[in-house]
């Protein structure tokens, strides 16, 4: 159907247009990247029971003694409800801080409760630390790949993130030192080294003691604060707890801990252990954000630590996760196409899988979701587009039979994708999916 040509479009006060958001011109620059993404939308399907989700990092809370929790929280409300349902100090409950010091002793850390700041999950501790240290443009050095939640924090404070070469032993100290020098030579302002040394998310690897010492030495010699994120330290399958980097340096490390992986993520109780001066600022920043962390959650955790055999419960988690890790590794060994490689975690939740032949895990994700299996594409763990041929598989939530079924489905998807690549050739220079916005599941995804 043809009509006269279109005239030029001039502003028309009677038809000014709409962006469906009256505040679009008012958002801060740091909010510019906060958009919906097709990849994240795909994960909404992964919540359905038909889908085997090897994507999320949710602990298997079904294994908790839920009846005991119910009795304990009922008693807590009855006997200490007036306190539990009230505000508390910004730094957090004193008894819980003492108990947290006991937990950290398992990692070789000798800490004073005054230096502990309790937060809403360790994610908030990370956020507060970056807030008090980083101005826009400051450089943060991270592993390759790095925890997506940390990348989100660095991005929201407009930091420049530099991925440092990471080998089988974790963050490479030589590469780290060179990266710091390079940034300084370029006139940039290095601020933090962020590392997950134990059962890394997403790599699943652990830094051996010698490597930890080398990384710490680089941090000290370059005058940078080391941010040690250690939520999985009690989840080693051999029952040993690796000595934390913080155990060997009280002044140069901010240590982040959490009960999310060891007890219950829904309680949202984490902490930062920081040098005195830093701790003061973290408390003030926390009060500015939330006044105080949830007192009910803190007292619940405190009561649980005081009255339950929590180390036995965590031992149960370790055995459960080891069985699932084994199911994942064995089924990958049996079913994954030749050329696929993966890390073998000694603890924690994740294995990092690298695919052959130039496969793109982001482009493959819709096919996987349609095939009722979910994973997190590797690109989500980088800020610079790396990781296209990799994916993070988690084994923490699905039961072993479901993990095997998930790997069976995934291997079929990969083979189909390999046929597609054989037909069309590698696709490394284009982005068929929109990559704007978050490319990982929302936290509640199991």
């Amino acid at each position, binding site marked *: 159907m043809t*009509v006269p040509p*279109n005239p030029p479009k001039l502003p028309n006060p009677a038809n000014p247009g709409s962006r*469906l958001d009256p505040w*679009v011109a008012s958002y801060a620059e740091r909010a510019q990247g906060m958009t919906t993404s*097709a990849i994240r939308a795909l994960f909404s399907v992964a919540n359905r029971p038909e889908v085997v989700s090897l994507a999320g990092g949710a602990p298997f809370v079904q294994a908790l003694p839920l009846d005991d929790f119910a009795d304990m929280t009922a008693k807590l409300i009855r006997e200490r409800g007036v306190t539990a349902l009230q505000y508390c100090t910004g730094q957090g409950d004193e008894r819980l801080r003492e108990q947290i010091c006991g937990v950290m002793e398992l990692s070789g850390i000798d800490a004073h409760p005054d230096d502990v700041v309790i937060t809403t999950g360790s994610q908030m501790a990370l956020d507060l630390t970056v807030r008090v240290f980083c101005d826009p443009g400051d450089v943060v050095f991270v592993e390759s790949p790095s925890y997506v939640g940390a990348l989100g924090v660095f991005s929201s404070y407009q930091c420049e993130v530099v991925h440092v070469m990471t080998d089988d032993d974790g963050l490479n100290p030589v590469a780290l030192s060179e990266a710091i020098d390079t940034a300084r030579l370029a006139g940039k302002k290095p601020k933090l080294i962020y590392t997950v040394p134990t059962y890394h998310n997403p790599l699943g690897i652990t830094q051996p003691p010698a490597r930890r010492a080398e990384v710490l030495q680089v941090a000290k010699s370059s005058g940078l604060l080391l941010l040690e994120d250690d939520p999985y330290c009690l989840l080693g399958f051999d029952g040993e707890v690796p000595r934390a980097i913080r155990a060997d340096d009280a002044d140069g490390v901010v240590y982040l801990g959490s009960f999310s992986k060891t007890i219950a993520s829904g309680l949202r109780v984490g902490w930062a252990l920081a040098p005195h001066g830093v701790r003061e600022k973290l408390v003030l920043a926390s009060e500015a954000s939330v006044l105080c962390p949830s007192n009910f959650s803190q007292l619940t955790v405190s009561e649980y630590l005081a009255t339950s055999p929590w180390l036995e419960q965590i031992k149960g988690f370790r055995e459960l996760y080891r069985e699932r890790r084994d199911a994942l590794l064995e089924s990958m060994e049996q079913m994954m196409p030749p050329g696929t490689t993966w890390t073998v975690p000694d603890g924690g939740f994740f294995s990092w899988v690298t695919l052959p032949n130039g496969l793109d895990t982001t482009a493959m994700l819709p096919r996987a979701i349609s095939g009722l299996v979910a994973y997190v594409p590797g690109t989500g763990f980088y800020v610079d587009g790396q990781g296209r041929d990799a994916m993070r598989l988690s084994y923490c939530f699905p039961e072993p039979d479901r993990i095997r079924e998930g790997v069976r489905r995934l291997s079929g998807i990969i083979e189909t994708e390999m046929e*597609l690549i054989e037909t069309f050739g590698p696709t490394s*220079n284009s982005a*068929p*999916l929109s990559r704007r916005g978050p490319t990982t599941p929302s936290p509640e995804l199991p």
Partner: protein
Amino acid sequence: MSQRVVVIAGGLSPERDVSIRSGRRVAEDLRKAGIEAQVRDIDATLIPYLLEDPPTCAFPLVHGVAGEDGSLQEVLQSIGLPFVGSGAHACRRSFDKAIAGALLADAGISVPESIALPQAMFRDLGAPVLLAAIAEQLGLPLVIKPNRGGSALGVSVVHNAEELPAAMVGAFAYGEVVLIQRYVQGTEIAVAVTEDGDGPSAMPAVEIVPDSGLYDYTARYTAGTTEFFTPARLPDETLAAAAQTAIRAHEVLGLRDWSRSDLMVDEAGTVWFLEVNVAPGMTETSLVPQAIAASDTSASIVLAALVERATTRSQSED
């Protein structure tokens, strides 16, 4: 008689999230009209639920395969439950972009030249040769999209031949057949069609101006990233032609109750049909709610009228 509507939303397609948001909004608007409305997902409990206590009618809002390819409508027809929207056959021919385009081209509507092929054809004939031949035939730029699907998932605009393989892989991730279509430069608009007692009528055209230049998933569902003009900033004759195109598409494809046609108007004023939606999105950023808002009516009134039509028509019309 008081009406009770079950809005069916969700499903297992990549558009699940969009569908759920659409379903919630439609249910809310129906409640404002005094209609009892619940949202239900497609799962093993749905059919027993519908059979045990049949609602007055169903309102399918599942996007993507199963919701728009006629499968869900076939099921609703088989259990004899009235529902809003097009019947199974009409959905089937509309959801397949190649079939819908061919039918409408035969009816005299301008449809960009296109080729729809399965992956096996590229494998058997050799992708480089075949893609080169198609690019030569249709000319660049090209739009690459899954032949069946929505929300622009898997859609790319390709400006040079080197980008074609990645675009094909991206589109095949969402379906077995990919449509390669000549790209039409111009003004992108959407025209919603609703039926009342006097037949189909068009709502004001919504003009779409994405900041990124491509109305992709992010531009569709992130408020602020796309500017909309309703009615579209086009001459009255063009708007009338666009309305007529949407109505003709609705009629030729045998659609019922409502639809939304996505159109492109080129520099010469030609209105090109791109695709039609039998279960249009109804989220906060979707196009039909904007068209309704520009029509001096409300979503409650429009949706309640659709429910009324569905509940009063005879089963034989399914």
